[in-house]
């Protein structure tokens, strides 16, 4: 109760500071950041010592640590080195071979909960498309997908370098919206896009959109990118669009889905793969626009370290406790 009370009071103060005082936020200097890291590590060591002495911590302590590990790095001004993995490089190579004016189909098959991982990928991918004058066609097999696409597009259009290009809806990019039916939508798109998307997201008829008017089906698409958080997603796209219609495509997957895709990557069914936030950060680095994917990486590394620490502590407890005790 006490903790909840303190958090509540702090929250109100912070909010008032933001609204009334024009408070601009906190940022830890590198020195403070390092001190925080050391304190965190020291407290974990202390827990390890406690465990060695036979005093086990409860799961709420684990929860607390996860919370801290995720939020504190958001304040820090230090950053982390990013190494490009081969599958990310492969995706980048695939799109850098496309000529300007290439028609790129991007399928947004996720909803807001997966946005922290996939939205940075979407933004980085679209950023590359827009700066290289690709024509972008957006669809969604998840009801909220097209909306996520619009969020990303609106954000990018506001950037000065893209605003300068004066991109036109319907000519440079379209959002065809959502269609229910999972893999059957993909299958029918193999026959005709228009049959599945008679109108775009805001109700314009397909044939009124200059960009897609002459696009019948996958044979008119140069490259396709699928952002997937589950079913329907990359697996269905590969099974239908790639296997049956020969579409060339890359995938952006949540870290959970990514391991499943290595099969397709190895079999040559996928041309490139971004896996989780790492993939997003790596891709941001390649396209030369570092944003949330990169910024969140530090939090992610911290969280990983905390999980690793607790796996170790748990196993120490297990060995000390005579390999029997169940927590």
């Amino acid at each position, binding site marked *: 109760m006490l903790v909840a009370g303190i958090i509540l009071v702090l929250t109100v103060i912070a909010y008032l500071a933001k609204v009334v005082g024009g408070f601009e936020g906190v940022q830890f200097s590198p020195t403070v950041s390092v001190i925080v890291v050391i304190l965190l590590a020291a407290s974990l060591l202390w827990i390890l010592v406690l465990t060695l002495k036979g005093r086990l911590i409860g799961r709420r302590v684990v929860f607390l640590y996860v919370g801290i590990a995720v939020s504190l790095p958001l304040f820090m001004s230090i950053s982390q080195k990013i190494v490009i993995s081969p599958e990310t490089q492969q995706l980048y190579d695939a799109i850098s071979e496309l000529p300007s004016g290439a028609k790129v189909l991007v399928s947004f098959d996720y909803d807001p909960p997966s946005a922290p991982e996939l939205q940075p990928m979407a933004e980085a991918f679209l950023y590359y498309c827009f700066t290289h004058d690709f024509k972008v066609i957006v669809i969604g097999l998840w009801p909220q997908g097209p909306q996520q696409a619009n969020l990303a597009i609106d954000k990018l259009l506001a950037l000065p370098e893209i605003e300068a290009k004066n991109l036109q809806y319907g000519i440079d990019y379209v959002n065809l919206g959502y269609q229910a039916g999972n893999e*059957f939508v993909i299958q029918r798109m193999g026959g005709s896009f228009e049959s599945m998307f008679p109108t775009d997201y805001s109700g314009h008829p397909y044939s009124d959109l200059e960009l897609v008017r002459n696009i019948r089906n996958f044979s008119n698409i140069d490259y396709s990118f699928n952002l997937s958080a589950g079913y329907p997603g990359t697996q269905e796209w590969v099974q239908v669009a790639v296997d049956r219609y020969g579409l060339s495509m890359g995938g952006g997957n949540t870290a959970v889905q990514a391991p499943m895709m290595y*099969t397709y990557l190895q079999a040559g069914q996928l041309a490139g793969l971004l896996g989780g936030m790492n993939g997003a950060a790596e891709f941001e680095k390649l396209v030369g626009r570092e944003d949330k994917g990169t910024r969140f990486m530090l939090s992610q590394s911290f969280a990983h370290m905390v999980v690793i620490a607790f796996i170790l502590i748990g*196993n120490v407890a297990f060995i000390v406790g005579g390999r029997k005790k169940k927590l």
Partner: protein
Amino acid sequence: MKRQIPLFITFFVGTLLIFSVFIPPMETLGENFTLFFDIIAVFAFFLGAGNLVRVHVSKLRKRKADWGFSIVTLIGFGFMLFVGLLKIGNPGGIAADVTAPGSWFQEMFNYVINPLQSTMYALLAFFVASASYRAFRAKNREATILLMAAFVILLGRTPLGMMLTAWIPDSLSIFQIPNMAVWIMNSFNLAGQRAILIGISLGVVAMSLRLILGVERTYLGGDDSG
């Protein structure tokens, strides 16, 4: 009769769909049947929604524990039907898509469902950590192997993993943890996945055939259901 007809329907529909794959003029049969499924699912939804309302109204009537929250659920459900079916506040009027930006329906999604969804999903982070702490023990050989693989992948994706093995010369770079992580993903992981996938597909074949042939028929009701 009561049991024979459903058995026949399952057999007929299942067999037809299996063969339709090999007969071009019947190619689209699967899609059409899936359309039927979508329509049936909505009809079933009337039963589901009816059940939802009935459960919460009866909680309310009997003043069961937490009946107050049932009111909230009922109001929420009714409100969504109201704004969704009538497309209240939809900038494009009744003809536009129900999830058009700006409609009340979509706003409810953005500011109520979305944060709830995302937060519930984010709870996973906490549970992943507690599961790691509590369940990932080197209990036996299998568990130890699982633990080690997870450990390498986790380490490989952190700066610590890079630092730990950065001293290994490039000629042996495969033993650097980040490379090991990628390599485990590409070889071991692929092998395990493949065995599981092949197994699953055979399991599906056998189970589908049991259903189609009526060996498995619990869904049809008991023997003496008359």
